[in-house]
């Protein structure tokens, strides 16, 4: 009961004296003083968009009632007992309501939903989390150093790359929207840590309501500016509210973060198909500001989060292979929800330098253009242009949702390409790719699922494998020189044999199944699905790094990205 209460209404600390932000504070420190205003703004705009058209208004109310009844009937929990009656009674009355009554009901629904979405920001919680999180994670990694002043272990494990100075400049000139790849539920934690150690601002972000089910996590999420996204709610008004909330925040200069992949990459592949809803909120924020003559730029920062070991790898790939990835947004029984797996994971990576690399890519404007030192949009040849021109028609800035929708689709394509360029390939991924490619090559004509059953049946000569690994690495270096991808320092520095042994030691002992094992001078493939997960990061590069006799297998691997 208490747990439910806390997850529904996350705790806030009492304010004896309101915090007055200092000019040097990040924009999010102003959030609490603007919170009610932001909620009102969202409610006003959503209601205005529906009120002028009775048919649209009635449709929105019917849609809300229909989806909520369906959801609550399935949930059969306390929330269902509390709310089902309201929606059932409402759906019966919609047709009989006059305009005023319908508008009043719409206003109530939108206000409640927006309040549920809106987060909170408490500078005290922020300061506490800044100090406590690294220490806690460091403590899990090295319990004896729990009380050490600096979380050295975390510093060793987490590496940050990118033009941080440029981003630090831009944070004071406009709204930054960080758009990272998404592999693990740890992403938000490591990313906020990466922002912190890089001197970049804390951001507003949407967090799945499933993360609010734990009262402690819920407390931190809620008080650190996260807004709640309940993916079970299918109501179109709710989706409009989420998007508009994000838009209004960006319009007002709050730095934001969202995962355009929508959910964790089940396959381990670099995301290609991006969810455009929240991405569009950045584009529309820019055009709305321009129409209102507010010159506040919006920049997107393509960010990649690269792990040598993924906490939830086994569950994610299993889910992908079961083809449930699309439907199963919320996995409540994965490794993230098992504290012993957290310990096992952190204890495993403690000795690995650069086990997680966060790479902040070059920022781009909402139209996919490069951004210069002073935040100006640039053409490919370096000519400075006014980004406001994109929202002009016959010389004047105008609002046009269809146009902004098209810009958003284009931005999604640009981001997908940027993700490839900014991905930092890790030792485990390259080793898995070479092993998996050999598996494909030695089982011609077999389908992906049949190959998953070949556990312990395929053995490869270790020396040949190391040679192939060396060749793959040389080709990756060439790709890196062309700016097509990046590789970790470990890949650059290790010998192929060291790389192989490193990957085996990372996998084995953490994952429940053995990805591959050394047996004398042979490597035996233990769990092809784990190899598949890690190698999937190299899908876009498979053909480019294959030798002529491996080309057939590489094409087959590259097609995984086309068909799935």
């Amino acid at each position, binding site marked *: 009961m208490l747990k439910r209460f806390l997850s529904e209404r996350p705790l806030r600390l009492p304010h004896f004296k309101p915090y007055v932000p200092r000019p040097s504070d990040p924009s999010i420190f102003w959030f609490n003083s603007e919170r009610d205003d932001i909620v009102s703004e969202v409610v006003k705009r959503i209601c205005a968009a529906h009120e002028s058209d009775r048919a649209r208004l009635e449709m929105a109310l019917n849609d809300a009632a229909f989806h909520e009844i369906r959801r609550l009937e399935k949930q059969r929990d306390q929330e269902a007992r509390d709310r089902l009656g309201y929606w059932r009674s409402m759906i019966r009355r919609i047709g009989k309501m006059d305009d005023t009554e319908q508008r009043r009901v719409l206003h109530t629904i939108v206000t409640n939903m927006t309040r549920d979405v809106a987060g909170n920001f408490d500078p005290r919680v922020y300061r506490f989390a800044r100090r406590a999180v690294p220490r806690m994670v460091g403590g899990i990694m090295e319990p004896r150093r729990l009380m050490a002043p600096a979380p050295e272990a975390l510093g060793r494990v987490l590496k940050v790359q990118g033009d941080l100075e440029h981003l630090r400049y831009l944070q004071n000139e406009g709204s930054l929207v960080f758009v990272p790849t998404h592999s693990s539920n740890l992403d938000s934690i490591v990313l906020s840590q990466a922002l912190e150690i890089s001197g970049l601002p804390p951001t507003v972000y949407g967090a799945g309501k499933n993360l609010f089910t734990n009262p402690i996590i819920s407390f931190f999420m809620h008080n650190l500016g996260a807004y709640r996204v309940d993916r079970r709610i299918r109501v179109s008004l709710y989706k409009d509210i989420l998007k508009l909330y994000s838009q209004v925040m960006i319009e007002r200069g709050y730095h934001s973060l969202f995962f355009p992949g929508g959910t964790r990459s089940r396959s381990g592949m670099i995301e290609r198909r991006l969810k455009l809803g929240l991405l569009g909120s950045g584009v529309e924020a820019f055009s709305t500001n321009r129409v209102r003559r507010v010159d506040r730029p919006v920049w997107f920062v393509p960010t990649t989060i690269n792990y040598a070991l993924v906490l939830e790898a086994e569950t994610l790939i299993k889910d992908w292979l079961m083809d449930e990835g699309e439907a199963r947004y919320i996995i409540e029984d994965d490794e993230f929800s098992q504290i012993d797996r957290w310990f096992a994971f952190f204890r495993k990576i403690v000795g690995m330098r650069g086990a997680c690399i966060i790479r902040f890519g070059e920022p781009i404007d909402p*139209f*996919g*253009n490069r951004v210069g030192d002073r935040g100006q*949009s640039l*053409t*490919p*040849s370096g*000519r400075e*242009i*006014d*980004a*406001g*021109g*994109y929202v*002009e*028609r*016959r*010389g004047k800035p105008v609002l*046009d949702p*269809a*146009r902004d*929708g*098209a*810009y958003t*689709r*284009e931005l999604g394509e640009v981001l997908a390409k940027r993700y490839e360029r900014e991905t930092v390939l890790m030792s485990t991924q390259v080793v898995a790719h070479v092993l998996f490619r050999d598996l494909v090559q030695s089982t011609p004509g077999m389908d992906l699922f049949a190959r998953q059953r070949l556990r312990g049946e395929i053995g490869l000569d270790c020396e040949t494998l190391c040679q192939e690994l060396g060749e793959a690495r040389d080709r990756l270096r060439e790709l890196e020189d062309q700016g097509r991808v990046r590789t970790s320092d470990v890949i650059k520095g290790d010998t192929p044999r060291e790389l192989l042994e490193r990957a085996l030691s990372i996998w084995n002992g953490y994952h429940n199944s053995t990805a591959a094992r050394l047996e004398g001078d042979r490597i035996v493939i233990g769990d092809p699905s784990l190899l598949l997960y890690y190698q999937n990061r190299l899908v876009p590069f498979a*053909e480019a790094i294959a030798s002529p006799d491996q080309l057939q297998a590489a*094409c087959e691997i*590259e*097609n995984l990205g*086309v068909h799935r």
Partner: protein
Amino acid sequence: MSLRIGVVGAGGFGRAIALASARHGHDVVVWSRKDRELPDSIRMSTDIGTVGDCELIFVAVPARHAVSTAEQLGEVVDGRHLIIHVSRGLIGAELKTVTQVIRDKTVCRRIGALAGPLAADALAEGRPSGAILGTGFPELTEMARDALGGGELRIYDTSDVVGVELASATVGFLMVVLAYAQEIGAEPSTLAVLATRGMVEVSRVGQTLGAKETTFMGLAGLGDLIAAVAGDQRPEFQLGRALAQGAKLSNARGKVGAYVEGIDVARHMMEHARRLGLDTPISSTFVALSEGRINPDDAIQALMERHVGKE
């Protein structure tokens, strides 16, 4: 309201667009490397910068010049400009569309591809016709209708830009195939099978590049093919006939006097299909035929002996 329209390229299509736009009362400037004679209502310029003053720009150059043209345009355009191209071709082995090239080389984003059974002389003279505009930007369609539409030209639109461009380019190849078959005396039913199965084949490949099947069956694909078969004097048809009469590909191209990209498109398309494990029997057979690796009898036999299945 009068628009400022720029036309890049003063070939047949460029002139036709300029004439149609001027007829509708717009302020038109045509850019070309060489000075060309144009009616007084149209300005001529050899300075690409003049196009930068226009809001709507039509690009009417062959696909093989798309890269260099886009690079030049890239120096003068920005986010304010809207671009529509009328090129019917793809670039390189990656089957890059002209829209993608313009997208890469310029900062313009509001881009569209105009295609379909639209003939330059009908457009220039204002005879009733129709076309399809592939664009994600509805405002571009409105502007294209303002510029060219009037009562003579019906411009439909679709958001399947890549579909329009792939259909337009691959249909060019099917035109060569049909002309060849017609010239060697193929029966109407044979032509019908080649056309419909050919369309299925190119649309199958197109779908792997993001195109929608329905676009191939619309104005950009089937519509364009019907216009060509109905007697539209396309260079693709002349090339097909010349090849059937025994000319080598290079000579046949010389005879036509225009660079027909159909065979190159088919070759790249085959390579792409092979990598994905797709079957392209008509393209593969015809490319072999055009390169002199097989003769017409072998080609017919190879196609007829194939396993026949459901449509």
